[in-house]
């Protein structure tokens, strides 16, 4: 199977190791990976700030770059959701949009739903806190949200908990937002930082050594707060955890 890698701009620029880990995980699972080099950004920063007309050309560009691939895989729930759930508002009815929307997956979702792999052979003997990023959770439904009364599930937690030796620590607030929120992080700096610190405290109290999640943006925000506060927490994208655990 061949997939096109969709690496969000900030991962390309700031967290290249997360992109490499994504490649490694997919290849270890027997997938052929290609990286279309013309990609830049999906347009989410502009779209979420309300600037639809500035975001639309980036959405069209995305269709040009990724149109024609059967599967597009992204190590970010938020950017994958941008394509799947918000492109309709930016470029309604654009030719090829439906196909690209159908093809685009967040990494754990792709492993679970397309590769139909439920267990990952690997070992990760650490105490891990799972941060459930909001767009992955409530827009892509990677797991059940605490507000909805449905049978609990989590595609991310299932993959992680299949690793040998891992301990997923129980949080008091299982899916509260960390306060990153894109431009929210700077526009509403005070609230954003308190939200992030409250998440950190929850993870520390639960005994986490490592906080993981599907979105480096949330982790970047919490890591920035943790380093400033010298909190004893490390942050790894779920692809990094899986890549390190897999033999």
């Amino acid at each position, binding site marked *: 199977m061949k997939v096109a890698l969709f690496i969000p701009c900030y991962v390309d620029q700031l967290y290249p190791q997360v992109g490499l880990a994504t490649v490694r995980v997919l290849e270890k699972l027997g997938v052929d990976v290609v990286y279309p*080099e013309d990609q830049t950004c999906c347009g989410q920063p502009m779209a979420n700030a309300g600037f639809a007309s500035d975001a639309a050309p*980036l959405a069209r560009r995305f269709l040009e770059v990724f149109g024609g691939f059967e599967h597009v895989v992204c190590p970010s729930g938020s950017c994958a959701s941008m394509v799947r759930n918000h492109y309709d508002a930016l470029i309604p009815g654009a030719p090829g949009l439906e196909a690209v929307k159908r093809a685009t997956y967040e990494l754990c979702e792709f492993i679970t739903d397309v590769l139909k792999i439920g267990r990952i052979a690997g070992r990760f003997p650490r105490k891990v806190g799972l941060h459930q990023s909001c767009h992955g959770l409530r827009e892509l439904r990677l797991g059940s949200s605490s*507000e909805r009364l449905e049978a609990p599930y989590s595609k991310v937690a299932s993959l992680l908990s299949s690793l040998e030796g891992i301990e997923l620590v129980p949080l008091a607030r299982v899916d509260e937002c960390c306060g990153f929120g894109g431009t929210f992080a700077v526009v509403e700096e005070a609230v954003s930082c308190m939200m992030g610190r409250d998440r950190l405290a929850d993870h520390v109290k639960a005994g986490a050594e490592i906080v993981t999640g599907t979105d480096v943006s949330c982790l970047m925000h919490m890591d920035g707060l943790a380093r*400033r506060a010298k909190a004893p927490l490390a942050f790894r994208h779920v692809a990094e955890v899986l890549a390190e655990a897999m033999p």
Partner: protein
Amino acid sequence: MSDSLPVLRSDGRGHADRAAAFLRDEPHAHWHDQAVWFVRAKRDRAASAVPEWERLREVASRIKAHTQARLADYLEEFERKATAAGATVHWARDADEHNAIVHRILSERGVTRLVKSKSMLTEECHLNPYLEARGIEVTDTDLGERIVQLAKEPPSHIVMPAIHKKKEEIGDLFHEKLGTPEGLSDPTRLTEAARAHLRERFMAAQAGLTGVNFAVAETGGFVVCTNEGNADMGTSLPPIHVACMGVEKIIPRLEDLAVFLRLLARSATGQPCTSYTTHFLGPMRGGELHIVVVDNGRSALLAREQYRRALHCIRCAACMNTCPVYRRSGGYSYTYTIPGPIGIVLATARGVDGHASLPFASSLCGSCDDVCPVKIPLHEEILTGRRDLAERGLQPMSKRLGMRLAALVLRVKLLYLAAGATARFLGRNLPRGVLYARWNPWGRQRELPPMPRETFRQLYRKERRPRV
């Protein structure tokens, strides 16, 4: 609301600054977060006792959508049935008409003392100051409402109006206003003092005013839900009952209550039902019942497809209780009568004038969508509000230019790569004092992300280079 461009009145320093002021007292902010989260947790437990909860939400949402599509018909049916039952129905186009109607009803009957149970609609219309300026003494009889009325403050939450106040503050307020012993902060004794004080007001009142939770078209009756029985006291003692409702309170059939009443109290406070769920049909014997039906922008909202579903709202406040921003910024950080996610949507849908910062008081986490008992897509509508502001050129120039520039750079791969390389170079080499100076709100409380020498695409290419 008109379609012409509004003159943008400033909302002062904006939500972010008001929130920052709220957060300056960090222990109080933590207390507020936890007090409100406690209600969210209670809601979770109550909802989980209903196996068909998600189905109820879906049915409620559909009933609301159906009703809105035939709103005029149902309103007229309600008027006919209510009139047949002996009530008088008044129609108010806006807040001014609403206030004038209520005042006329009261003044024509010589009423100078009015008791009120909770009604967000009368808050929206600023009825209390209107009546007080015309010589009518208005007593809010819901305990939380009475507390904020005594403190001369607006409610900071639509179900728990005084949630921002700790019991010690209420003790001080009651000591000053009601003569309770100094330093008394025991909630039971404070409530007893309020009860005795309110009892006098009930006995002396000449008319009672209530809100309406649900008005039933097929019967002409309506339902008022309270936990304190204050609406019942206020409508059983004085002979005149004025009930004020927005047009969206209508539901078609009595049996629809079986859906909404199961959702309302569980979503609002985590109770299976409110202590009092009172059905009114016509006036009491020898009394009068006036029902004031108010539009005040609601039909204009109905006309706007992207915001329409905000009219589903049954004012349970679950979106406030779950909102991580509301819990950490308090009700007063919003500029509209109704705070939190639904308040943001209602305010911006009516016109951004004076509320331009509200759509940005959200991390778009979507928790409000999932908690809402009538499935309003709140975070989508908040995003629509941002889009409206941008389309009408009402976002700050610096942001418009910044976004335009970023979009241009990101559209051209070489520019994107050059900008990224430059930013990372500066990030690695500028002195800390410059990087973390005032221009950088990210860095006030947070470290910047790593600024690696190489991008993913560079490392990927290196890995893929065929080895000799």
